[in-house]
């Protein structure tokens, strides 16, 4: 089978939401030839046109399955598939099992990308968007992290690790704050520019403090324990990739897993949830951390790193970084509103972090 190389594709108002180019659909059909499956129907479930990835749902005589076209480099995808296999086979985690090809392989390489088939878990329900739901997510996340420890990637794969990259990702945030400022200065006539300029110093200062604290923390000691000790982060975890099945929480879409301190997923979940609430709530934060701790115990050192990571201006950064692309469009009245919301939410963050900072004092270290 000789296939064209898969490239990202254009998606616009003329193409429907689940449009996938014909040549990729044809490759998908060829890929399925490698499996001992009798497929009754195939349907696109989600696409990543800008990256060149897609997921199909298959109805087969042996039940529903998913077919995935992974957009990452094949060697990078091998890392994630190895992790998925490890979690299912070695750790018995609630993660969809990979369906083997007829020659017992985990994947098919076609069009320069990896494709694989996995079990489609049914029933699967999102947890409720309340504290109970958030606690379920946190407990399941801790479990995922705990079970991913000890993973050794296949020999041919690229080792994806963010373990050493914390300081540089903090630095990058600080650097980009300066970009935001410079752009707002140069495009001073646009509606949101003044507002951006009014607050950027404050958020830059926060990021600098976080970096200082990270450098003074036990981070550098903790990372010495190495990749396999800490296990994997999911990197895209939340209400859609952690869902309730008949026998407990399942975690899906593992394509982006990487070695890291597990806290990063937890931090993203907490700060994202607080952004959705439009305010920081001390009870939510405490309960979420506690649920996580039940399945993957946190030490005082890890708790400190979590506090530091929460102190970053994560939401400001995440929402404003788009400004570099089309400042003329981005710096509009809507962004002025957005900045105000972020600032208001941020003001409720600090009392919460202050209140919980000593919660883990004296908890046994590793």
């Amino acid at each position, binding site marked *: 089978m000789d296939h064209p190389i898969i490239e*990202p594709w254009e998606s616009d108002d003329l193409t429907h939401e689940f449009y996938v180019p014909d040549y990729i659909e044809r490759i998908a059909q060829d890929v399925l030839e490698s499996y001992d499956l009798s497929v009754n129907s195939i349907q696109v479930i989600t696409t990543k046109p*800008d990256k060149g990835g897609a997921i199909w749902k298959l109805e087969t005589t042996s039940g529903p399955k998913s077919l995935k076209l992974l957009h990452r*480099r094949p*060697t990078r995808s091998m890392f994630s598939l190895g992790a998925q296999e490890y979690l299912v086979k070695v750790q018995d985690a609630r993660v969809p099992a990979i369906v083997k090809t007829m020659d017992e392989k985990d994947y098919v390489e076609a069009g320069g990308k990896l494709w694989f088939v996995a079990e489609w878990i049914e029933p699967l329900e999102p947890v409720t968007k309340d504290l109970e739901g958030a606690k379920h997510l946190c407990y399941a996340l801790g479990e995922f992290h705990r079970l991913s420890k000890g993973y050794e990637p296949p*020999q*041919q*794969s*690229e080792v994806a690790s963010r373990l*050493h*990259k914390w300081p540089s990702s903090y630095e*990058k945030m600080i*650097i*980009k704050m300066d*970009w935001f400022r*410079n*752009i707002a200065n*140069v*495009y001073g006539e646009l509606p949101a520019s003044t507002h951006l300029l009014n607050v950027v110093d404050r958020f830059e200062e926060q990021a600098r403090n976080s970096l200082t604290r990270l450098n003074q923390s036990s981070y550098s000691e903790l990372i010495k324990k190495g990749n396999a000790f800490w296990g994997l982060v999911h990197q895209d975890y939340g209400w859609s990739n952690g869902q309730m099945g008949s026998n407990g929480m399942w975690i899906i879409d593992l394509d982006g897993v990487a070695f890291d301190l597990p806290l990063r997923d937890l931090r993203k979940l907490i700060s994202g949830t607080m952004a959705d609430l439009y305010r920081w709530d001390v009870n939510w934060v405490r309960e979420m951390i506690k649920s996580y701790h039940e399945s993957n115990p946190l030490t005082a050192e890890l708790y400190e790193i979590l506090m530091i990571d929460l102190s970053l201006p994560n939401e400001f950064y995440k929402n404003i*970084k788009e400004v*570099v*692309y089309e*400042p003329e469009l981005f710096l509009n009245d809507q962004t002025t509103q957005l900045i105000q919301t972020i600032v208001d939410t941020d003001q409720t963050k600090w009392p919460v972090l202050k209140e919980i900072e000593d919660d883990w004092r004296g908890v046994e270290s590793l």
Partner: protein
Amino acid sequence: MKILMICTEKLPVPPVLGGAIQTYISGNLPYLSRFHEITVLGISERSLPNQETIDGVHYVRVPGQILEIYREGVIKYLESTSFDLIHIFNRPRLVLPVRKVAPEAKITLSMHNDMFNPDKISPEEATAALEEVSNIVTVSDYVGNVIRNLYPQATAKITTIYSGVDTEQFLPGYHPKMQKIRNEIRQEHGLENKTVIMFAGRLSHNKGVDRLIRALPELSKKFKDLAVVVVGSSWFSEDNITDYVAYVRAMTKKLTIPVVTTGFVSPSVIQNWFAAADLFVCTSQWNEPLARVHYEAMAAGLPILTTARGGNPEVIQLNENGLVVENPENPIGFVEKITEILSDKSKMKNMGIKGRELAVSLYKWDRVASEILGVWGDAIHTSSSSVPETLTDIYVEQEIIKDLVSADSIEAKPTDTKSNYKQKSTLEKKVEARPTDTKSNYKQKSTLEKKVEAEVKQEPIIELDNKPEKEIENNGMKDKSKTHSVRDMIKESLRESVRKTIIEQMIIDSNEVSTEDSISNLIRELKRRRNIE
């Protein structure tokens, strides 16, 4: 000698897609291949065959891009072919796997950047790799110092060899061969009657062209005729541009000064842009090893403004061939120094002339090649030290010392190898040849200058294949060197026999495990042996 040069897994050699390391290797091959039988092992590339012989150099190409895949190809190749010396470029992580299949070969390692940092190679593997290599060549003192700080035990093995440039390819814009091209480019891009500031490099935060862009509004108040040329890829592409490129584009959009962006320029024609420019600015924010563009700008007769980061200032003689921005984070530094250069046209011109002179006298490939030949010679006469230290350094040392003539000054430094001796004395000799240049803030550079000038005067560089002996003789070190080499020879033969046993054992032990495993096995085995001894 039969020599294998192992390139990195990123880009092919010859440098059809560019690349500093690839350019370095290709620049040296015409000279190196006159003295040795050379094979270049690199990655496959659509436009190049998997095996070929050009001008006496044998090229072998295996799949690359990912180190793990490349490593497999390298190992497979080495299983069938043996070499006296293997020169690995910038991949310390290849050292142990190579050692496993080539237990007899000497290994030289070239370091072009920070691949010894802990996030690139585990301290355990790095330590073991450093013991296996005979010597380490770095592209600047900066790169060597970073390795020294991490692994002080490697100090004696590290030598700086500055890179080079083809001074026939890169020529000043006023050179008869370039005048027409210069005029054409300037005409085509609306640069006539402009003072053209040139940047060449990746568009990334580390390379920092944004600081130059941000300096322009201020500069445009002082100079009415400015234009900027940015030579670097990924400017135009619509999708998949980085945040950084988007940022620089956004900042450029509002400028009144014309900014010409070239996109990717093939390495074979990039000299044309240098010839079209009037001032070269390197804006690097990071501790850069030492960017090649400095040599190219010098050869093109351009005054240089660079930053006090990494190895870059090592090739600048202040006010002679350029200036250095001490705090490159702040665009003001670029405003000030560019103003300083542009305000004095005769000084600006002289800086360009001096740059060309330096390129021709110090930074041609034949000089680089002659230094590499010297290092290879040293490697062949030293042994790598995968032998228990207790055995070599204490027991052997004591035994030898007992048997040899009574103590002289050398025994004060029993671990000094012959090659170190030579390097030190060479340097000393060069420094003595002329008093230190007090004008310069950057001492390392002036040392090199003296060193090479002395060499140029004493003998034509290209005939330096027999250089080491001459130097030792000239140096009044003859007797000591001899004493030393007798001892070295005994030590070496003892080491060799122990080493062979160890390596044979390692190969038996690691026969059936994966490469990743065998690296830890190799390290473990070395350690175990040491403990037993």
